[in-house]
Every structure is written in C-alpha cells, then in structure tokens.
C-alpha cells in the first residue's frame, strides 16, 4: 500500500459525505447502496464513522461528471479513466468524482463498471491511501471485474488504512472473524444525517487463491475456444489465454481480462472475420464483437440475432472460412452455416457434423482455420481437416501448437 505525500488523513473519526448527483445508469437507491457499502468497507476496519448529509458542505463530496468538470483532471470518455478522488483536506480534498461517460452497474457485468468496486477504491483515496502495486488489492489502480457479493477488503488495504487510522475501537488489531455484509441504513432526505454503522466485527482478509493455468504440454489440456486475431492464434480456457504469434517464438500466457476486462468470464467459442478486423466471442446465449482491444458498442447480443432458434442456449465452437465467407457454428453433433455476406443462416442447416466432415463423429469444443485447414478440437485431441474436401487429414494432440 501507499499513502499520499505527507500522509494526509482526517483528524477526526466522524467524517461526512454527500452525494451531489446520480448517474442515470442506475437506480438512485442502488447508487446510494453502492456508496454506503463502499464506506462500510473502510469503517469496518478503522475507528472511522461515515455520516451522509444532504445539504451544505461535506468532507467527501461525491459526484458524477463528464469531460472537464472544474478540477485538475478531466475525464476522457468511455474507458480509460473511470474516476478519481482527492486525499483528505479542505475544499476539494476528499472529494470523489466518477466519469459519467462510463456505464455504471450495480453488479459486475460484461458491459459496465461496478460502482461499488470503483467507489470503494476512490474512497480509499478520500481517506488518504495512494495506489498499491499489490495485484488484487482494492487500491491497485487497474479496474478488475470481480464478484462483489460478500466482498471483503484485501489485507494490503487493511494494512494501509490501519497505518493511517488504526484498528476499530475495542476490536483486535487484526481481523479474526468474517462479518456478513450489512445492509445500509435506509434514510430519507428529510431526515437528519444518518450514520452508516460499522459491522460488529472487523473484516477478514480476502483469500487470494487464483485458479492455476494448466501446463502448456499437459497431454490432458483441452480448450474452450480458439480464434485467430490479426495473424495470431488465441487459445482460451477459463480465464486464461495462450497466445501464439508469428512475431515471437515463445507461447505467451495471458488472461482474458488483460485484453478485455469486461469479458473476463471466459468463452464458449470465438472466430475472426479478418476482412472486418472483427472477432466474435460467444458465452452462453450471448455474443460480443471486438476489434483489437475494443468491444464494439451494442454488445452483448443474443445469439438468436444470428438466426439460431430459441432452443439453442449456447454454441460449442465456431470457425470462419475466409474463402467462402461462411462461418460454421457447432452445437452438439450438428453444425450451422452462417453467410457473413448476407448475415443470415443458410437454408438446409443444421446438419450432422459427421455427415459432412468425415471422421468427426463427435461434438467440437473449439475450432480454428489455419493454412487451408480446419482444426477441430475435442478433448485433448484435434482433427486436421481439409477445408475444400472436408476430409480428415490427421489427428494430433490439442496442444501441438505449443511446441511440446
């Protein structure tokens, strides 16, 4: 953790806040709840008490604004900078500003930023914490989408805030017991300032056990989805990405969130239409279009928009044939053909995979088009198929692309 130069902090335990305006992205009550819960995170591990006021000046003034909004740092439209807040002090000190050009959400979703998470981070600044270089800490400067149900403050942030304010009164210095999330106190604007009470017990550090990435050469390695992207090949499994590029020899290991933070949950399928510099990713009944790092606006969309009947809940794999401008979608033991020119499913489909792709008598986990061949992945194996004749050429391990 870090603090600001000269370690500014509030010299009192009762700190007031005021919400000056609301984002239209969320219900007002949801904004109030997100902010209250964010304060509660910090009050649960310090002696601080936060009281909301409805008029006049508060120590921490909270607002939503776009572009230049009268301070030192203008906002920059969607993405990029999400919010900022000032260290404790007079006037603008302690104030937290949120970029109205972002899409704010109550929950962690693919298409917006969780206001509670961002507010909790910004209020850390409002209380005197700077950025932490500890990955996973709340005060890490990068937004990381995560499930915020039962969210608990990471230890690095507890250490930081307690270095400024100490532990809660009449509580052990180190958290020993988890406390359930407390509902914020409901208030009406007509009431006097209402205190957001700290929970009964301090917060337990968030366990930091991340799923492990399978080894490249594990013979049991399987994939969820595979796609090309600007000459590279991306292999997906869970939140992990293996990146094979003609520009460097080694396989690069990444996470989906490092490319598309809003899509961190993993994919069922993906394919590239290189002429459009566009990759489509599929997860359950939805799909997203990305161009490089950017998720195109208007997504996610239901897969029914591509012509699938409502009985199809998800697809297993997809691959695009650049020559015919057809995309094949694989669902169970059948496949569909989508005409990218007309943007419509072709008549006569779905057909059985085995009927047209001889030797592929099973479902397809992931599919890839490369060097005039299709590669159909099933479990730890892949099947090389000639694009024109649709005949099986060879069978290999799924990870044969990793120089094993």
């Amino acid at each position, binding site marked *: 953790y870090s603090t600001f130069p000269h370690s500014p902090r509030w010299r009192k335990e009762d700190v007031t806040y005021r919400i000056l305006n609301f984002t239209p992205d969320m219900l007002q009550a949801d904004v109030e709840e997100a902010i209250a819960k964010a304060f509660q995170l910090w009050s649960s591990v310090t002696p601080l008490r936060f009281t909301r006021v409805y008029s006049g000046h508060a120590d921490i003034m909270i607002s939503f604004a776009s572009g230049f909004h009268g301070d030192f740092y203008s906002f920059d439209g969607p993405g990029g900078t999400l919010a900022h807040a000032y260290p404790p002090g007079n006037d603008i000190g302690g104030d937290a500003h949120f970029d109205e050009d972002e899409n704010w959400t109550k929950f962690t979703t693919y298409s917006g930023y969780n206001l509670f998470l961002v507010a909790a981070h910004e209020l850390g600044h409002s209380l005197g914490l700077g950025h932490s270089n500890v990955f996973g800490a709340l005060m890490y400067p990068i*937004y990381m989408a995560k499930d915020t149900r039962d969210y608990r403050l990471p230890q690095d942030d507890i250490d930081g805030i307690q270095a400024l304010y100490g532990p809660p009164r009449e509580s052990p210095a180190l958290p020993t017991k988890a406390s359930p999330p407390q509902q914020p106190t409901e208030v009406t604007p007509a009431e006097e300032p209402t205190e957001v009470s700290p929970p009964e017990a301090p917060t337990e550090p968030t366990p930091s056990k991340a799923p492990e990435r399978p080894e490249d050469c594990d013979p049991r390695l399987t994939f969820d989805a595979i796609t090309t992207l600007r000459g590279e090949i991306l292999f997906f499994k869970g939140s992990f990405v293996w990146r094979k590029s003609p520009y460097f020899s080694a396989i690069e290991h990444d996470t989906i969130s490092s490319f598309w933070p809003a899509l961190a949950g993993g994919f069922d399928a993906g394919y590239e239409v290189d002429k459009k510099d566009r990759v489509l990713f599929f997860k359950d009944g939805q799909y997203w279009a990305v161009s490089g790092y950017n998720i195109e606006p208007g997504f996610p969309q239901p897969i029914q928009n591509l012509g699938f009947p409502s009985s199809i809940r998800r697809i297993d794999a997809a691959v695009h044939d650049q020559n015919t401008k057809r995309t094949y979608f694989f669902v169970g033991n059948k496949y569909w053909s989508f005409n990218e020119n007309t943007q419509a499913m072709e008549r006569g489909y779905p057909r059985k995979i085995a009927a047209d792709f001889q030797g592929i008598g099973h479902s397809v986990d992931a599919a890839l088009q490369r060097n005039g061949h299709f590669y159909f992945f099933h479990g730890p194996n892949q099947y090389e198929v000639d694009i024109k004749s649709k005949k099986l050429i060879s069978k290999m391990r799924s990870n044969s692309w990793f120089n094993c």
Partner: protein
Amino acid sequence: FPVVPEEEREDVQLAKKYLESFYDFKEEKSSLLKSKGLDQMAAKIREMQSFFGLEVTGQLNRKTLDMMKQPRCGIPDVRS
C-alpha cells in the same frame, strides 16, 4: 496485438499521455533535446513497468501497452 504503423504512432501518443497523467512525465518540446526526451520517457516506462511488476525494459512492448490500455483510476501512481 499487431498493429499498423499508424496505430504504432497512436500507441506512442497513448503512452506519452499515460505517463504524463500517471507517472509525472513531461515531454521535452525542443527537438535539440529529443534524445534526452526519449531517455526520460524510457525512465518513466521503467518506473511504470516496475510498479506493475512487468519486465523492466524501458521499452514500449506489448504487455506494457496492454497495461496502459486497461480501465483505471485517474489518480497518478507516482508524484513529483
């Protein structure tokens, strides 16, 4: 991801703006001191790479650019 030259220039501009915003980088305006400006930028890139636990090269490589493109808080990571 691989980019066309125009995008490379855009990436350099993005990196400059990022370092100005979050790492107290001030671009040298005088062309006579261009090499000094590049050194300063490399130093700031190293600082940023160190902060995020990236390989410290001082070069604007893919992972560094990836990190710069992430949505983030607008408060600087380092201060003058």
